[in-house]
């Protein structure tokens, strides 16, 4: 979860949703469960997470699973009230923080609440994030037995000095073990990497990639380090203690990653994600980029409910009255104590929301869709934008063959300049 909440209108205290959301909808429904706890806060991290000491003794940690069940209840109720019929949940993703700071049994209990409330699809994907040093063979087995199908480890780097700069405390030597344990428990495994840490050489980066490949995982995420304002690392950079790598350095490392992963049989399916086969892609994250519905449970979590089926962003099959939007997004109070207090008082924990206009919904659709290897349906674009597709193909940012087939798909260079492509497509 990002640190600062967006600006929006206040959310109603009872959590009521606009009634125009009601009606048939065919999009998938996913649930995100946020766990806002970590044993230590890493220097680069601006996520909504708290160490035991920051929350005053960690008493809340014990009660957290119970608190989150209240929001699940509320979610189901307000969606039904708005006329959105229950759908089995396709994907569940537990993120943080460090979800595995909670006992595995708590995570299983939260998943069970989702299942009891909406039902889980037969092929549901259920992922949890985990730190390599906060799992054991036993805890992983408990998760698998409880319905989890997938685990994503925050490995970040295999190089000790890079981990030290990031203030990651896990032992890199442990990564192959935890991957093995997870697979033995029957879980699919993904590893997360960060590139462009101050002091990281291209060779360091190759070492991390090679280490990942040695584990044989079927899914890798690789993110350029972003130093967010307000983090400890931002202060270190400001004081000159750390030197930020240039954007060119990050671009080079991205190209290295794509080349190394691709030749090892992992193909990109989103700007920062690679999978061995399409079936290995993270379906929960794909749901974000495809504009499906999702509910985020937990402090600072965001939720999104798109328009009902009949409303198409650019070619509506029915007229949209002005008071209706093209979907609604809302977000919860950030601090766990305020979040818990709202729920205990019987109120919605939502702090704010936004109703998307036609233009905003279109921009989001382009901005998210273009990040995917499947690309964006060119039929969704206005006439002017379709003309700029030709230019983007000529500049080598969009794949020409796919454009002819009616899709906007980024080239390797285009992936690195994806924001420029979006600006071109929504002119």
């Amino acid at each position, binding site marked *: *979860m*990002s640190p*600062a909440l*967006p600006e*929006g209108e206040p959310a109603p205290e009872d959590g009521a949703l606009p009634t125009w959301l009601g009606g048939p909808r065919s999009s998938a429904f996913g649930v*995100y469960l946020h766990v806002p706890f970590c044993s230590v806060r890493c220097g680069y991290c601006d996520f909504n997470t708290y160490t035991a000491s920051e929350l005053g003794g960690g008493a809340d940690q014990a009660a957290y699973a119970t608190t989150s069940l209240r929001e699940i209840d509320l979610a189901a109720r307000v969606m039904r009230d708005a006329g959105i019929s229950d759908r089995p949940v396709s994907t569940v993703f537990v993120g943080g923080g460090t979800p595995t700071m909670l006992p595995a049994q708590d995570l299983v209990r939260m998943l069970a609440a989702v299942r009891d409330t909406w039902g889980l699809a037969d092929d549901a994907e259920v992922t949890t994030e985990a730190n390599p040093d906060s799992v054991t063979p036993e805890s992983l087995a408990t998760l698998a037995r409880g319905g989890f199908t997938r685990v994503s480890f925050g490995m970040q780097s295999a190089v000790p000095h890079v981990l030290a700069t990031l203030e990651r405390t896990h032992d890199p030597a442990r990564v192959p073990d935890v991957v093995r344990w997870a697979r033995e428990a029957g879980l699919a495994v993904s590893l997360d990497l960060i590139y462009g840490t101050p002091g990281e050489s291209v060779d360091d980066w190759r070492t991390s990639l090679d280490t990942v490949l040695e584990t044989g995982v079927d899914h890798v995420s690789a*993110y*350029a380090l*972003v130093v967010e304002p307000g983090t400890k690392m931002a202060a270190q950079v400001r004081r000159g203690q750390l030197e930020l790598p240039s*954007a*060119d350095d*990050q*671009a*080079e490392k*991205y190209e290295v990653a794509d080349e190394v992963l691709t030749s090892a049989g992992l193909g990109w399916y989103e*700007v*920062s994600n690679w999978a061995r086969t399409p079936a290995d892609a993270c379906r929960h*994250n794909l749901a*974000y*980029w495809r504009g499906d519905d*999702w509910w*985020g449970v937990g402090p*600072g*979590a*965001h*939720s*999104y409910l798109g328009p009902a089926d009949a409303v198409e962003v650019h070619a509506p099959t029915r007229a949209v009255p002005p008071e209706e939007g093209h979907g609604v*997004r809302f*977000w919860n109070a950030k601090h766990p104590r305020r979040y818990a207090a709202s729920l205990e008082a019987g109120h919605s924990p939502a702090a704010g929301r*936004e109703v998307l206009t036609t233009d*905003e919904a279109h*921009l*989001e659709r382009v*901005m*998210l869709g273009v*990040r995917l290897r499947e690309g964006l349906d060119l039929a969704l674009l206005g006439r002017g934008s379709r003309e700029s597709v030709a230019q983007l193909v000529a*500049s080598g*940012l969009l794949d020409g063959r796919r454009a002819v087939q009616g899709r906007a798909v980024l080239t390797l260079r285009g*992936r*690195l*300049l*994806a*924001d*420029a492509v*979006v*600006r071109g497509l*929504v*002119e």
Partner: protein
Amino acid sequence: MSPIPTADQTARIKPASTPAELLRNFCIIAHIDHGKSTLADRMLQLTGVVEQRAMRAQYLDRMDIERERGITIKSQAVRMPWAVDGTPHALNMIDTPGHVDFTYEVSRSLAACEGAVLLVDAAQGIEAQTLANLYLAMENDLAIIPVLNKIDLPAAQPEKYAEEIAGLVGGDPEDVLKVSGKTGEGVEALLDRIVQTVPAPVGDADAPARAMIFDSVYDTYRGVVTYVRVVDGSLNPREKIVMMSTRATHELLEIGVSSPEPHPTKGLGVGEVGYLITGVKDVRQSKVGDTVTNAAKPAADSLGGYSDPRPMVFSGLYPIDGSDYPVLRDALDKLKLNDAALNYEPETSVALGFGFRVGFLGLLHLEIVRERLEREFDLALISTAPNVVYTVTLEDGTEVTVTNPSEFPGGKIKDVQEPVVRSTVLAPSEFIGSIMELCQQRRGDLLGMDYLSPDRVEMRYTLPLAEIVFDFFDQLKSRTRGYASFDYEPTGEQTADLVKVDILLQGEQVDAFSAVVHKDQAYAYGTMMAGKLKDLIPRQQFEVPIQAAVGARVIARETVRAIRKDVLAKCYGGDISRKRKLLEKQKEGKKRMKTIGRVEVPPNAFIAALSSDGGGGKESKDKSKK
């Protein structure tokens, strides 16, 4: 006997009927901060024309800019009564603009006087600009009254500077009056001296009327107020008058004197100084230097000495916000009403959008106009580096006048003429070396050097005007720790080895950055500007070469490398709103970009390139303190 005339005495000096022998017309020649306005204020008080309670500092400087900068831009006349030995006199103090840009106006003001008070700061001594105006006054045969001001200052050295002045104007150091405008000490004696020393005006009361316009000011409520000095005959209310240069006829709606508020009178006779109001709305219809005569009984010959103001320095003025263009156009139209020397025409720049090419009398004039536009019309402006006017003769004999460097012809040029000035630098003698070095760098020729006193020197140089329109004065001040003073006057043209340097962005010329420079300085300018733009132009999706070229020959090159990364690595549920808002903002920013070829440039980049050190354009506040 009080020097302020009694009622009986006042009756003898009524404006329409004052005998010429009781009139004294004088001006004050002084350097900018030598206390002219303070002295004038003191005179107004001592002669009783402004009461104590109505007094505000620098009463005569009307415009805000004048008051703030402590400089006089437009002159005025004030009539003050003063009796000496029981005889009442009417003293007309004609205020002169203090700056070289307005030399023509100065010379017309001087022509309206018979005497001049040479006012010098007793702590600083005479300055170059004062010297120039003193020469003008002496050429007009004015009686000079040397005065040292600010004798109340602890740093005052009246004896030393009295000697310096006596050396210049002749006479005994003992005759140099010593006053303090601040305390009033010595000012009465000065008024007496004016009556005693300045000759009374002489003219033919029976001849057809001839009056010289020495100033013309636009007033929002009254239209153009014209200040005149009557030479022959008289002007009377309700008459029809004729402007002799244009033969335009106007009805005289009001005639009067200022003391210092306007007082309508029954007319103005020989030697009198006063104002006319005809209802015209544009100062161009009432030109400084022109002769006014009576329509019924016109004079055969004008007084002579009239010439049209000629702009010496040009600069492109552009609104930073393009939508302000109409505001700028209206503002220039309004300023023009009060500034006969201002001229402009619309100009379009690829880099800066719509604006005007504006001609000025000099650098101070440029700064004042720019500042008035910004202050009185709330405009944010960017000006291109000031340039001079070149006369280019092509090989086929065609002559081209170039006021905008980007229009400097390429190819077959036979000859280029550039304006030159004769300049005077006054400085403590310890700085001779560094002043010579600077003037040589700026292609100056030393004409001569004189010691005004053992430690003060006057150096005279011929310099190309182009070399002083940009940062010369700042350089001079910094090399002389602020002690040097500088003045110049145009003296003609010279052949020069000049070239135009163009700046190209991906092969496209960026007009606002073209400069005409001496061939030896082309490389330095090209490297400087290309380097500056390299830092200001954001990376694009492709490599952008920035070149400086003379004709087809590239003399400097920089490259803005292609951007390689423009994507946010992470975009999950909680990031989407933030990311969308970021893109919306970027989209807005993209709309404001200026496009040169395919290169998108933020509007501020060009402005920054013109504003920062070495690029030209932007004003520096100290420059006006010449």
